[in-house]
């Protein structure tokens, strides 16, 4: 790729095993500093589901040098702010701040990675906060509640079966010891990649990394996730009944992990099907026939085999059986005839534009560099990812559609308004 902003990424590995990825960018006087820990809900087990996400919250509740509230107080006082995100595979801590706050951030991040205090009083209060988060994104969110049930049905054995936020009874029950044990397995420097993009010098970042992060001892990373999801042997269907104005439908297929070349083909397929008003599903189900209010689909990049989920909201008065039937007709069309050349190129152009747009900000680049490092084991994929999807052919699409979009391999979840 010829763009200036794609070059000059520098990397190093600290003596304790933490990887460091740095890109200088002096466009604005700010820095994006991200920490990608290779731990998420896939590393949990029944009884402690949701603990990875809970830990993400506890990381802001005090360590040895910076006590409760101080991480946020000191950061905001220095002109920065932060967030964090837990997924099935990764937990990511995201700091945005003026370059003047760089050393403070190293000091505070090192403090909480090394010496997190797990104060029982904070644990109790944070449990309530997490419960409130769950009520907002699941219990009072029809899409959230249906998706949780869908994933629980599609995965019977693999840890993607349980929600990242955790089952309510686990949120209520995890103990102080569970938390201590979990911190010990997940928050090892050798289980983390740090990405710094923005108004810094690589030498300055490395000097601070050596001073603050390198002395933290390495320890054993989380044990490998052994359980593999067995092959699905027939269609699974489930219904959620809930007060609602409109139904929702989700249809999921088991698909491979991100490193499998078929995942890229599926990315192109989801673009063809639901990206933009010229996409197949938009045209057929929203524009040409008044069947759906919205339709979209895709799968995230994941470490283990995952599911590709299509979400359809039927129009008022439209039977979900009808949207389901039309949806299958569109999948069958992918199998029966090759995608025309111009349509395939269109999808690739859309993906390229989206990729460029993500590279525009320091936060976007920090996110992609860390994502590709953590999921694919190589940050350089940030700059070669476009070559992968450009290589996808019409024959690839037919082959992949035939392989994964089968009745036996699907799970269908429908939210039906109660009392209707």
């Amino acid at each position, binding site marked *: 790729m010829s763009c200036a902003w794609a070059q000059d990424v520098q990397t190093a590995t600290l003596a304790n095993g933490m990887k460091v990825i740095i890109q200088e960018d002096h466009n604005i006087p700010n820095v994006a500093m991200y920490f990608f820990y290779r731990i998420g809900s896939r590393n949990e087990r029944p009884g402690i589901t949701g603990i990875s996400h809970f830990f993400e919250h506890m990381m802001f509740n005090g360590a040895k040098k910076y006590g409760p509230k101080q991480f946020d107080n000191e950061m905001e006082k220095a002109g920065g702010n932060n967030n964090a995100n837990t997924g099935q595979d990764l937990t990511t801590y995201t700091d*945005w701040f003026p370059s003047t706050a760089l050393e403070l951030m190293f000091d505070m991040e090192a403090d909480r990675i090394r010496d997190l205090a797990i104060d029982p009083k904070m644990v109790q209060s*944070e449990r309530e*906060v997490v419960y409130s988060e769950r009520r907002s994104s699941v219990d009072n969110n029809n899409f959230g509640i249906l998706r949780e049930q869908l994933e629980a049905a599609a995965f019977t054995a693999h840890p993607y079966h349980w929600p990242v936020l955790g089952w309510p009874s686990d949120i209520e029950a995890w103990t102080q010891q569970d938390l201590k044990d979990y911190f010990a397995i997940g928050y090892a420097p050798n289980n983390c990649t740090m990405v710094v993009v923005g108004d810094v010098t690589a030498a300055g970042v490395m000097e601070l990394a050596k001073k603050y992060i390198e002395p933290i001892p390495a320890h054993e990373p989380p044990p490998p996730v052994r359980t593999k999801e067995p092959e699905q042997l027939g269609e699974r269907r489930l219904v959620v009944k809930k007060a609602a104005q409109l139904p929702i439908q989700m249809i999921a297929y088991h698909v491979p992990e991100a490193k499998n070349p078929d995942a890229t083909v599926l990315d192109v397929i989801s673009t063809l099907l639901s990206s933009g008003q010229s996409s197949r599903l938009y045209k057929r189900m929203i524009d040409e026939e008044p069947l759906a209010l919205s339709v979209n689909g895709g799968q995230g990049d994941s470490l283990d085999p995952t599911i590709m989920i299509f979400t359809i*909201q039927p129009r008022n008065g439209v039977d979900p059986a009808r949207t389901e039937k039309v949806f299958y007709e569109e999948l069958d069309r992918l199998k029966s005839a090759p995608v025309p050349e111009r349509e395939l190129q269109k999808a690739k152009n859309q993906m390229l534009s989206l990729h460029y747009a993500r590279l525009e900000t320091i936060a976007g680049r920090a996110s992609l560099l860390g994502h590709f490092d953590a999921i694919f084991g190589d940050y350089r994929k940030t700059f070669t990812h476009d070559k992968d999807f450009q290589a996808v052919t019409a024959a690839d699409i037919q082959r992949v559609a035939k392989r994964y979009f089968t009745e036996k391999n699907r799970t269908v979840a429908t939210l039906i308004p109660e009392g209707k």
Partner: protein
Amino acid sequence: MRAALLMFSMALAFGQAKLPPYSKDVLPNGAQLFLLPRAGVPLVHFEVLIRGGVESDPADKAGLASITAALLRRGTAKRSAEQFVEELDYLGGSFNAGFFGAYPSATTITAQFLSKDFDAGLDLLADATLHPSFTETEARKILARSVDQMKAAKDNPQASIGNYFRAEYFGKTHPYGVPPDEASYQRMSREDIAAYHAKYYCGRNMLIVVTGDFDAAQAKAKLAKAFGAAPAGEAFSWVKTSAPARAGRVLLIDKPDATQTYFQIAQPGINIKSPDRTALELVNTLFGGRFTSMLNDELRVNSGLTYGAGSRVDQDRLPGAIVISTYTKTDTTIKAIDLALDVLKRFHDNGITAAQLASAKAYVKGLYPTQSLETMSQQARLVGQIELNGLGRDEADGLFARIDGVTLEKANETIRNYYQTGDLTMVILGAGDKIRDQVKKYDPHLREVSVKTPGWAVR
């Protein structure tokens, strides 16, 4: 440490990040053109503003401006809807048209393309903006879909409480108080949409901003040709200032299946040109504008009542509100509302310290570059707002000086003036049977509406 100190002194020497210079031109038809080229990511970003926005919706046809915008791409004089979206997607372009924010004073049309596709992208943008065909078929489709979208919105408390709030706080005679609903879409016709476009999408009512990686001289000629084709027309005449509805009322929205209660508490704020704007932004940062703010600290961090609590200050052409908003599980509804009111009272009574003010100043300054100056769409948005509202480029370049100029005395005076504890408007959405009797303590004449009732206002 040497390296860090060195960086620190450099940052001080450079001071505030500035909005790069941009050119201004007026086309013969009155359209204003602003160009801000910057080499880098090979993309070009267009933003077209049509004055009027929420103020231009007819009283009984709320949503007309947005529907007009949404239909621009659904067929033009030279392209069918299908051709248009196929060409757009083939270029990997983006095209969005509608409202940006709750109470915008303009319709915003944005489009972004690879720089190499400047000509093709501009052709699509100008074709949609100036020559939409508004066929009967497309108009019917989008209006029917919008009616269903209003139903779907009722299933999402966090989204729908904002609409109930608008209707309750501003009232039906205020342009901000009439969100689109099922009935307003049913009253609209293709003719209404075409007439709206003919009246407002004209030279004197249009601003065009272009940012990103492009050649300014060539771009100017091409833009003048494309947008010079619009009739001159007339600029939108703004409505006279309207007062919000009577304050001190409580509205309960009954959603029987809700397991948590959502609420908003409001009082009068400012407009975008208020001299108190900078001071208010700083004190509101401390009150409810960031994670460590008093509201979030009390309701989330100290008590675990909610996942998040905050306060916003509307900054629009007409005076808006200062709004506390959060949610909590049904059982703790009263506890959370009382605590929010208590935080408000303490803020009013005690004000803030010099250390708090310094922290707010650093926070607002520190975030500014990533929120307003980093991307080509942020820059276009900033230029558009500066020019639409007549703010001058000091809006951006003088921000740090304005922040530095807010004294502790001014900050505390602002708190005393704006954060009152009486005559508050409250909107509460939750399971009516479980909270009705308790929330009556805030207003014995509490009014109530069901989420199942069409629309957003009490009839």
